[in-house]
C-alpha cells in the first residue's frame, strides 16, 4: 500500500474523531448514553476503517464510504405527505416514523397496538440492567467498525419492549426516513432494541427510504427473544440510489424462540447487512432470507454469522439475487455449530441470476461444525436464464422479451411471494420487479 493511501485512511479516522468530539460537546448527545458513546469510539479507534484484506470486508469495498466526509444528520424537516404515502395501509395505526434515526411522535400512530406495545427512548431505557448490559456487552465484542460507530454516536435510539405473552393483530411498520442534503453528505445512526418477553409475538416491518440522496444510514438492531417468543421481521431497503446503507442486526434467541427475518434490498451506492445471530437455547429457530435486484452500479452485500449454541436448533437461509449491468452482490455466510449443539438442522442456499457480462457476485457459504450429530447443508448457484424455461414460454406465444422478463421476475418472486404481508409484496413489486420489466420490455 502506498504511503498516501495510509495517510488518507488516517485522516478519515481523524475526521470521525473530530466529529465525535463535536457530538459529545453538542446538544444531541444524551448524558445517560455517554459511557456507551465513549466505549463506542474507543472500539472504533481500535478497529479502524476496514482495508481491502479485512476478513469481514473481502467482497465489499468501503473505501468510498470511509473516504466521504459526513456531518451528523439533523431531524428534518420532512414533508408529511411524503411520509404518509410510504406508510403501508395495513399499518395506518401501527407505524413508528423515524427521521434520520429520531423517533417522530407526531408522524407516528401506534393507536392500533394497545397498551402492551411499549416504545421508549434508549436514553430512558438504559436504566434497565438487561438493556444496558446488552448495549455494553455487544460493544466489547464488536468486530464491525460501523456498528461500533453507531454506538459512538447513539443518541436517539428506541427500545420496543413487549411484555410476556403479548401478541398483536397487526404488523408494526418502522419507517426510517433519511432526508439527505443538497450540500454535504450526512450520516444517521438509527438504533433499535427489541425485547420480547416469554411467549410474546411481534411482527415488524422496518422500511428504509430517503427523500433525496447523499446520505448514509448506519443502523444497528438488537433483538432479544425470550423463551417461546417469536418475531417476524421483514425489512425493506429502498433508499435513494445515491446513498449508502450499512446495518448490523444482532439477535439472541432463547429456548423455543423464533426469528423469521426477511430482507429485500433495492441497492444503492453500497448496502451491507451484517447479521450476528445466536441461537442460545434448545429449540431456537431462525429463518433468514434475502432478495435483491440490482441494476446500473448498485450494490448489496450480506455478511452473516449464525451461532448454533444449543441442541435442537434450526436455521434456514435462502438468498436470491438478480444482478444486471455492473451490479455487485455478495453473500458471505457462516454457520457455526458449537460443540454440544447436537441435532442441529441448518440449511443455507444462495441463488444468483446474472443478466450481464459485467454483473458480479461473490458467494461464500460456509459451515464450521464442532458437534457430531447434525444435519447441515450449504450451497450456492450462479446462472443465467434457463434456456429450457425460455423455450417453453416461447412455445406458448410469449415474446422473447416478455418471457425473459417473466423468468427474471419469477426468480425473485418465488421468494417475495412467501412474505406474509401483502403491502410489502406490493411494495417489492414496485421497487424490485419493476426494474426487471424496464430492462426487457
Amino acid at each position, binding site marked *: 500500500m502506498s504511503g498516501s493511501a495510509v495517510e488518507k485512511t488516517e485522516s478519515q479516522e481523524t475526521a470521525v474523531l473530530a466529529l465525535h468530539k463535536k457530538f459529545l460537546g453538542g446538544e444531541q448527545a444524551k448524558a445517560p448514553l455517554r459511557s456507551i458513546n465513549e466505549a463506542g469510539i474507543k472500539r472504533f479507534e481500535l478497529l479502524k476503517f476496514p482495508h481491502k484484506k479485512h476478513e469481514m470486508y473481502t467482497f465489499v469495498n468501503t473505501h468510498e464510504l470511509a473516504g466521504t466526509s459526513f456531518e451528523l444528520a439533523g431531524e428534518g424537516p420532512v414533508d408529511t405527505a411524503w411520509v404518509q404515502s410510504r406508510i403501508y395501509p395495513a399499518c395506518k395505526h401501527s407505524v413508528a416514523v423515524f427521521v434520520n434515526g429520531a423517533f417522530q411522535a407526531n408522524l407516528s400512530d401506534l393507536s392500533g397496538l394497545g397498551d402492551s406495545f411499549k416504545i421508549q427512548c434508549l436514553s430512558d431505557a438504559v436504566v434497565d440492567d438487561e438493556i444496558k448490559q446488552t448495549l455494553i456487552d455487544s460493544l466489547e465484542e464488536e468486530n464491525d467498525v460501523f456498528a461500533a460507530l453507531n454506538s459512538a454516536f447513539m443518541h436517539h435510539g428506541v427500545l420496543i419492549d413487549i411484555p410476556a405473552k403479548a401478541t398483536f393483530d397487526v404488523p408494526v411498520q418502522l419507517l426510517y426516513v433519511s432526508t439527505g442534503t443538497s450540500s454535504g453528505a450526512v450520516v444517521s445512526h438509527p438504533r433499535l432494541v427489541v425485547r420480547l418477553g416469554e411467549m410474546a409475538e411481534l411482527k415488524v416491518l422496518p422500511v428504509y427510504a430517503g427523500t433525496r440522496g447523499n446520505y448514509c444510514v448506519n443502523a444497528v438492531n438488537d433483538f432479544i427473544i425470550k423463551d417461546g417468543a417469536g418475531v417476524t421481521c421483514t425489512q425493506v431497503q429502498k433508499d435513494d440510489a445515491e446513498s449508502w446503507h450499512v446495518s448490523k442486526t444482532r439477535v439472541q434467541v432463547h429456548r423455543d424462540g423464533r426469528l423469521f427475518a426477511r430482507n429485500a434490498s433495492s441497492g444503492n451506492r453500497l448496502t451491507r447487512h451484517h447479521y450476528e445471530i445466536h441461537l442460545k437455547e434448545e429449540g431456537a429457530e431462525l429463518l433468514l432470507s434475502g432478495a435483491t435486484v440490482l441494476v446500473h452500479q448498485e450494490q448489496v452485500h450480506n455478511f452473516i454469522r449464525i451461532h448454533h449454541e444449543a441442541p435442537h436448533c434450526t436455521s434456514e437461509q435462502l438468498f436470491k439475487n438478480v444482478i444486471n449491468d455492473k451490479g455487485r452482490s455478495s453473500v458471505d455466510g457462516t454457520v457455526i455449530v458449537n460443540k454440544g449443539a447436537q441435532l442441529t438442522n441448518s440449511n443455507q442456499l444462495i441463488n444468483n441470476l446474472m443478466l450481464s457480462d459485467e454483473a458480479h457476485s461473490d458467494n461464500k457459504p460456509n459451515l464450521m461444525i464442532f458437534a457430531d450429530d447434525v444435519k447441515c447443508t450449504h450451497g450456492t448457484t450462479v446462472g443465467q436464464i*434457463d*434456456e*429450457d*424455461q425460455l*423455450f*417453453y*414460454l*416461447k*412455445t*406458448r*406465444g*410469449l*415474446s*422473447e422479451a*416478455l*418471457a425473459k422478463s*417473466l*423468468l427474471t*421476475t*419469477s*426468480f*425473485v*418472486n*418465488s421468494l417475495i*411471494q412467501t412474505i406474509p404481508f401483502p403491502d410489502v409484496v406490493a411494495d417489492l413489486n414496485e421497487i424490485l420487479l419493476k426494474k426487471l420489466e424496464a430492462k426487457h420490455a
Partner: protein
Amino acid sequence: MSLLEIKDLHAGFEGTEIVKGVSLTINAGEVHAIMGPNGSGKSTLSKVLAGHPSYVVSKGSITYNGQDLLEMDAEERALAGVFLGFQYPVEIPGVNNAEFLRMAYNAKLVKQGQDEVDPLDFDEILDEKMKMVGMDKKYKDRFLNEGFSGGEKKKNEILQMAVLDPKLTILDETDSGLDIDALKVVAQGVNKLTNENNALIMITHYQRLLNYIEPQFVHVFSGGKIVKSGGKELAHELEAQGYDWVTAPAK
C-alpha cells in the same frame, strides 16, 4: 392445401444428425400417431416443429399453412397455431399458473388484432377449460408446474392446449408416466379439442394411448426415419409383436 408438409427433413442436435429424411403430410381434421422405440428421433422431430433453437435443420423443408415454418421463431409458430405438449413440462417457480395462461391467451388475441382480456374475464374462460380437462381449480394459483405430479403436469399441458386452441398440436409422450385414470381424463380432454379444423400428432412409445385417442394414421419411426405407415391397426400389430419386425429391415 395441407396444414403441414414435411419434406425430406434432416435435423440434429449438437452436430449429430438424428432425424434422417422424414417426409409427412398432415391435413386439417386428421389425427396421426408417431410410434417408435426410444432414441428413434420422435422427440427431436417435435422439438424441430416447435422451433427449439438448439436443434438444427440441415436439409429439407417444413411448410405450415402455406408458410415456411423453419423461417419462424418459436413464438411466431405458437402464435400461428402450432402447439407442442411437452414430454417433460418445465417447472417455473415464481410464475403463477393462471397469470401465465392469461399472458399466453392475450398474446394470441393481440396477434389476431383483438383486445386483451382482464384477469376476471379470463378467470371464467379458465374455469370452463379446467373443467373440460378435469383439472382442480387449486392449480390456478400454483407456480407453473412446480411440484405438480406427473399427471397434473400433463393435464396442465392439455389445459394450455385448450386455452390456446391450436391448429396443429404435437403431443410428445403425453401418456408416459400417467396411470390409467389420468390417461383417460387427458384423452377425454384431447378428444373434446380435436375437430375438422385442427390436426393432432401424437408421439408415443406405447400403444395404450391410442385406445383412447384414435388415430387415422400410424407411422413407425426408427433410426430417424419413418419406416412404416398405416392405419390404426398398425398400432395393434406393434403392441402384439413389438417394434423389431418393422425396424429390423430398416437397419
